[in-house]
Structure formats: structure tokens, C-alpha cells
């Protein structure tokens, strides 16, 4: 690694934001922006003079871009750096996965153009989703999802839904595990639930990531089993912090994703009680001295009939072309074939389900409905949803 290389890459990073004539998407964006700016008086996006200049340049570029398109209609490839949006903050599960994918792609040269990862976490991820929604057929932006794809619009009322984007692929499903501190007297999920039922109302503290998101949804679903007793849900900023709070005994339980808690489990600080899936994990290699992921019973078999998994999927802007979607599907297939990916899946005990096309769309549709019902039941819907 030389200094030269470093500098070159930084330069290319900045250069990427300049419009070039061969660059379709930029041109299209430019055109759209130009018209938008002229349409709205006082729009802060662009000065009229600049926008007109932009429009002329764009019009000229479109013609040249068109000729290019006809030449290479079949196999599409990114013509500029691809932006990978994470609708969550740094350090969380989605962030880890996206940065990991970026690493695998770079390391194995799977894409000619560089990939830039950006966190757009504002408004529980709404910032990122809105950007992709407005991207308008931009083939150089992809977004990774977590459950906030469903929960954020319902809880905040920010206007977007999965239907505003193009589904690309489901990479995996992230599991949820019920964890307690290893010094807790509860050895099984049943004992844990019984203790809540026998104890005073709201004294058991459940730590989780965010509010009105997946962790709290699971908590509410568990309260069906503990009824009439309830738990107290305490929201934290991120999964790592939640696991640490459980190690420090500031909460009584968590529903951390495996990857967030595995290290503490290995160190003997946490104990898994059950996994929120309909069947046990398929990973049989020992994680601790005597336990593997597959040794954790499902919550259902422990008498807590709650199932929940989180989508780790990829979406694009609305209106992208099928061959552009196909390119990314192919890219992610290549990522999944790497040994690094396999190890990552095993470390995080992911449910490896890969879906594309109509199957994926159908899955998302069903899950959107499930989330709506769960959130309605929990009274988490924003007014008007």
C-alpha cells in the first residue's frame, strides 16, 4: 500500500461527485433538479442561472448517453461509485453487515467501481429511505434494510413504504435470542416467564434497541405470554450498548441479535434462553465450551410462542431497469460465495435464506402486513397510519 494509491483513491472519491457526460444517472438527476428548481420559485436547491446552465449541459449529455445505452443495453454495469446507504447509525447490525459487504467487494475486486458506505440514520432511518425513494431510477444507490423499513413509517408517520422502492434481494434473516445475565437464576425461558408472572407488575426490565422497533415489538409479543403482568421496556441507542447493560445487570433481559451478544456469551457473561425462530439454528459448531447455536431451544418449544426475524435485504430506487437489478443480484451472489461471507453468517448465526424477484416481494408484502398488525395491537401507530 503506497501513499500514491491512497491519494488516488481519495481523488477518485471526490471526482465521483462531478457530473461527467457519459454518466446517465447524473444527467437525469441534473435534469430533474433543474426543472424542479425552476418550477419552484425560491427553491433553495439551485440558483436559476446555474440550473439553466445545468439543464443545457444535461440535455447535451442525454443525447450522448442515449447512444451509449443502445450500444450496451444488455449487461449493465455501474458507471460511477455506488453509494451504499445504511438507514442506521455506526456500529449496529446493519452497519456491520454493510461495511462487511463493502470490505468483501473491495478485497475480492467484485466490482469495478468503488463502493461508498454512508450512514443516514436520521429519524429512525427515514432519512436514508427517503433519499432512496427520491432517487428516481438512480442505479448507483442501494440501501440495506432492517426492520425500520416497516416500523419507521408506521411509528413516525414519515411518508415512505417498501412499495416506494425496488426490492433487490434478501441477503439473510437476522435472528433474535432471549438473553439473561449468566448469574441470573433462570435457566430456561419457561422459568424466566414464570418469574415475571409471579413477580410484581413491570419490575422485569427488558433492554432493547430503539423505540417502537423490532426489540420492543418482540417484548410486546412476549407480554401476551406473561399476561396480565407486563415488562418494562428500556430503549437504548444500539445493540452493543444493550448487551453491555445486561452484562452490567442494569436490565434483566434482552433480545439481542446473535452478533451483538456472541462475544459476551463466549466470555461467559450472558446466557441464551431461547431463539425466536420456528426451528433451531443450523450451526452446530461449538461457540462456548459446551454449547453451539443449535443447542439453544426455540422459544416455541420452551412455551413462549413468539417468532420474529429481521430482514437483511437490499433495495434500490423506484424505476430502475431490470438489468440494473440483475447486476446487483449477481454481485451479491458473488459476495455470498466468498468464504468470508460464510464465516460472517456463522459468527452471527444468521438464517441463510436468499430470495430475489417475486418471492422476495411476496415475503416483504406478508411481513409488512405482520408488522402493521403487531404495531396496531401494541398501539405504536402514529396518528393517521
Amino acid at each position: 500500500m503506497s501513499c500514491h494509491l491512497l491519494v488516488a483513491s481519495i481523488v477518485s472519491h471526490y471526482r465521483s461527485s462531478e457530473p461527467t457526460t457519459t454518466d446517465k444517472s447524473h444527467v437525469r438527476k441534473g435534469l430533474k433538479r433543474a426543472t424542479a428548481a425552476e418550477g419552484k420559485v425560491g427553491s433553495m436547491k439551485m440558483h436559476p442561472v446555474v440550473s439553466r446552465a445545468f439543464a443545457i449541459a444535461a440535455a447535451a449529455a442525454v443525447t450522448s448517453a442515449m447512444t451509449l445505452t443502445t450500444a450496451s443495453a444488455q449487461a449493465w454495469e455501474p458507471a460511477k461509485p455506488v453509494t451504499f446507504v445504511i438507514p442506521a447509525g455506526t456500529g449496529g447490525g446493519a452497519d456491520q453487515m454493510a461495511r462487511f459487504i463493502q470490505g468483501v467487494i473491495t478485497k475480492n475486486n467484485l466490482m469495478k467501481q468503488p463502493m461508498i458506505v454512508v450512514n443516514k440514520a436520521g429519524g429512525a432511518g427515514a432519512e436514508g429511505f427517503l433519499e432512496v425513494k427520491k432517487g428516481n431510477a438512480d442505479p448507483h444507490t442501494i440501501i440495506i434494510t432492517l426492520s425500520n423499513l416497516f416500523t419507521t413509517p408506521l411509528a413516525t408517520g414519515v411518508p415512505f413504504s417498501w412499495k416506494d422502492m425496488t426490492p433487490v434481494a434478501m441477503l439473510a434473516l437476522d435472528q433474535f435470542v432471549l438473553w439473561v445475565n449468566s448469574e441470573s437464576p433462570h435457566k430456561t425461558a419457561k422459568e424466566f416467564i414464570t418469574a415475571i408472572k409471579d413477580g410484581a407488575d413491570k419490575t422485569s426490565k427488558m433492554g432493547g434497541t430503539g423505540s417502537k422497533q423490532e426489540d420492543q415489538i418482540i417484548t410486546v409479543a412476549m407480554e401476551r405470554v406473561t399476561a396480565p403482568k407486563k415488562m418494562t421496556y428500556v430503549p437504548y441507542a444500539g445493540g452493543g450498548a444493550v448487551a453491555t447493560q445486561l452484562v452490567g445487570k442494569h436490565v434483566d433481559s434482552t433480545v439481542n441479535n446473535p452478533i451483538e451478544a456472541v462475544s459476551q456469551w463466549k466470555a461467559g457473561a450472558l446466557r441464551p434462553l431461547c431463539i425466536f425462530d420456528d426451528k433451531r439454528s443450523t450451526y452446530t459448531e461449538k461457540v462456548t465450551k459446551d454449547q453451539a447455536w443449535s443447542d439453544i431451544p426455540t422459544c416455541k418449544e420452551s412455551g413462549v410462542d413468539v417468532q420474529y426475524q429481521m430482514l437483511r435485504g437490499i433495495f434500490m430506487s423506484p424505476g430502475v431497469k431490470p438489468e440494473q437489478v440483475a447486476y446487483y443480484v449477481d454481485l451479491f451472489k458473488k459476495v455470498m460465495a466468498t468464504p468470508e461471507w460464510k464465516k460472517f453468517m456463522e459468527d452471527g448465526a444468521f438464517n441463510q435464506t436468499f430470495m430475489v424477484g417475486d418471492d422476495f416481494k411476496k415475503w416483504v408484502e406478508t411481513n409488512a402486513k405482520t408488522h402493521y398488525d403487531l404495531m396496531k395491537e401494541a398501539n405504536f401507530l402514529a396518528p393517521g397510519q
Partner: protein
Amino acid sequence: MPKARDKCRPRIIGGMPVEEISSLMQGFAIALTPYNLMLMFIGILLGVIIGVLPGLGGANGVAILLPLTFTMPPTSAIIMLSCIYWGALFGGAITSILFNIPGEPWSVATTFDGHPMAQKGRADEALTAAFTSSFVGALVAVILITFLAPLVAKFALKFGPAEFFAVFFLTFASFIGMGKGTPFKVIASMCLGFALGAVGLDKMTGTLRMTFGHEELLSGFDFLIAVIGLFGIGEILLSMESGLKFSGSHAKLQFNAVLLTWKKLPRYWATSVRSCIIGCWMGITPGGATPASFMSYGLAKRFSKNGANFGKGEIEGVIAPETAAHAAGTSALLPMLALGIPGSPTAAVLLGGLMIWGLQPGPMLFVEQKDFVWGLIASMYLGNIVGLIVVLTCVPLFAAILRVPFSIIAPVILVICAIGAFTVHNSMFDVWLMMMFGVMGYLFQKLGYPLPPLVLAIVLGDKAEEGFRQALLGSQGSIAVFWSNPLVATIMGLGVLLLLMPVFSWFKERNAVGKTASANS
């Protein structure tokens, strides 16, 4: 595996340093290859550049450069990335002192006295003091990491929501009554900061607050944009009013400025020690570098003999925040390595890097990846020394920037500020916001309202609120949770004491005035 764990046990209990020293020496052997040394220099240089550009920031810088390191061996990669981090920590001080623009949140407190020093033509002195203090703070923190890592990491686990709130409360309390004006102006300024900090998503209920349907406000007011505007743009507006020149431009260039300043520094050992303690403690807990720098500045002002001169260009006002920020920034890596909790945004990005290299951060890292951990710790020593040399040799160069005429440099600063604000979310809206904050900063200065409490409240307000509400949720609404154990009770007690100190001194003064008045009559 069980064998390895047994081997590590005596270290946790007994704390015998022999094993650490041999591991550290091994770490030096790993870090001291020509290739790694070269990466260190490149990392520091890139880091300084990143630190100087406001808005880019250490976390973004590391994130952008992270992919370049994937092809390197993990130890070399982390050496380079952590050097970028040190470089950014050093670099943040440069623009704070020269142009009153803090590149990073923890450099804000450095502007309070650093910039007035530069205006008086003592930029070289301020820079030397800042760099040297940074080095001292980082060094103390690294020594702490070397010998006490597993033991100290356990302390971080004691921190629940109530303890976090107590720390933030202590930081706020150390600021009340330290402004130049009345405490009421401080409180007014702080409250405005809380209000601005509350915009965006309410993390406790998952609903939006005060966004009034504007999508731009979804993520609230970003601290960096507020700071670039309030300080950077505000300062330019003030300079324009006072006649288009930098007051520091008449500074003579002294090439032995470093040595002259070094002669003065030992005098302030007490401030240094106090700041190191605050910094290490805040880094580990993990309160972070920003509250550490503010708290350290607040306490230095209170306990220093020259406290009254703080804000007018007192060298101690540069030493205190810089030492604490670096001690905290460095020791923030400790919870990351030992527990897998990032103590800072940059640490969070580094954490992502660890995963890509196939390393699982957390309690087992010290046992399973000894080479990597000790290589990293050794590089902290070396990286900071390299960093100090690099930045100190550039002191006359940086100071000379102030000799450039204002009419040339002001537009350059404006452009850099705008780029910085734009980079935060890649949005033009933020640039307008920055200008708005600039006007606000100017008005604040004119009306005698202090800016630091406002900034402090924007940065830490939502975190303090989070801790407060989490604690109350857990205690079923009982406020007694803030006195429920010795740790949180002590921190809260200290906070209340600091909060009441201005009241005490006010009474004392009034009594004294009353007595002299009655004696005269």
C-alpha cells in the same frame, strides 16, 4: 480455550505488570517494522488533514479510508487507522486555535482560550501547548490501557442509565456560573441549546419532535453544523466588523517557540494531572472526549489561580481541554477492545473494521488475538510520538497562516466551512443552516450571551435526556434512582456541589461587601 483463560486470570486479579511488559515488548516488535512505520506516518498526515477540515471528522475519515486497509494484514491496518485517529485528534486543535473553528466536537473547548491567544499573536504558543498536552493526555491513557485494561474495563460495566445521567449532569454543573456574564445568561443559552438538541427523533418514544413536517429536520440539528456556524462564521462576521483584519497577524514568527513554551508548561502540572484523570475516567466510562474536554475546562477555570482570565487567552485554558480530550479519546478504545462497546463514533467505525478482518471485538479479544491487541497498543505509543513530532515541526508553518491577509483567507475559510457543513449529510440545506447559526453566533457575541453552554447543550442534551428517562423508566418513576448506589450518589453529589458553588461565592462576596460597607460607615 480454557487454558488460555486461566492464563489470563492472574492478570485480572493480581495485576502483576511483568506479563504486560513482555507482551508490550512483543507488541513493539510487531509494530516497529519499516512498513508499519511508514503506515504510521501516512496515517498521521492523513489524520491531521482530516482533523483540519471541519465536518469531515475522524469518524468519516476513518470510514472513507477503511476499505483501503482490507488488503493489509489486520495489525498493519489497525495501526494505520488508529494513526489517522490520533492525527485527527491533533489536527482538530489547529483550526480551533487559528480560526475559532473546531473541526471536532472535543476541540470546542480549545477555542475558548486558544483563539484569543492567537488573536494576541501567541498562536505558536497555543499550538505547542495544545499538541504537547494532547500527547501527555494520550500517553497517560495508553499507559493505563497497557497495565489495567481488563481491570478498568470492568468499571465501565457499572455504568447504567442513572450513572450516565449523573456524569452529564456533572458536566453541565461545572459550566453554570463560569461564563463571563451572569449565570442567568448562561442558563438561557443552555436552555436554547437543549431546545435545539431536542429536535428530531425522540429515541425514547420513537416519535418525531419539533420537525413540523420538514424532512430536513428529521435528524435534528447536527452539532458540527451548529459549531461551524456559531464559531467559524460568527468569528468571520465579527472580524469583518472590526475592520477586515486578523488581530493575530502582527505575530512575529519565532522558530524556537516550541522550546520557549515547553519551559512554561511544567508550571501547570496540577491542571495537567487533573485533566488526565478526568479524561481517562470519561473515556473509559464511556462518557467520551467531548464531555471530558468541557468538564476539564470548567474545573480548570474554577480551580486555577488565573481562573478569572479564562476566555481571554490563558494557556491553562488550552492545556486543560486538550489533555482531557486526548486522554478520553485514547482510553475510549479500551472499552471497545475489552468489551466491544465503542466509546466514540470513530471507535465504532474501527469496530466495524475489526469484524472484516475476522476479529470479534469483546472480552475474548485480549485472549484470542494477543498479537493484534498488543501490536495496537504498541502503535498507540509510537503513533503518538510520531504525531507529536509531525505536528510540532509544523507549528511555525501553521502560525504563519495567520499572516495571510484577512481578505484572502476569509473567503477560503468560508468555503472550507461550507464544504464541511455540506459533507455532514451531503445536503445544501445544512449550508444555509450553517449561515443561520453564523448570524446567531454573531448576535450572541454582541449581546453578551456565552456560546459554550449552548454548544454543550446541543452536544450532550439529548444524551443526558436519554439517560434521565431510561433511569426513570427502570425505577418506575422514582427519582431516588439517582442516589441508589454509592457511585451514582457520589457523582450526583459532586454535581450539586458544583452547581451551588456560584451561589456560595455570591453570598460570600455579598457578606464581604456588606462588611466593608458597614466598616466604612
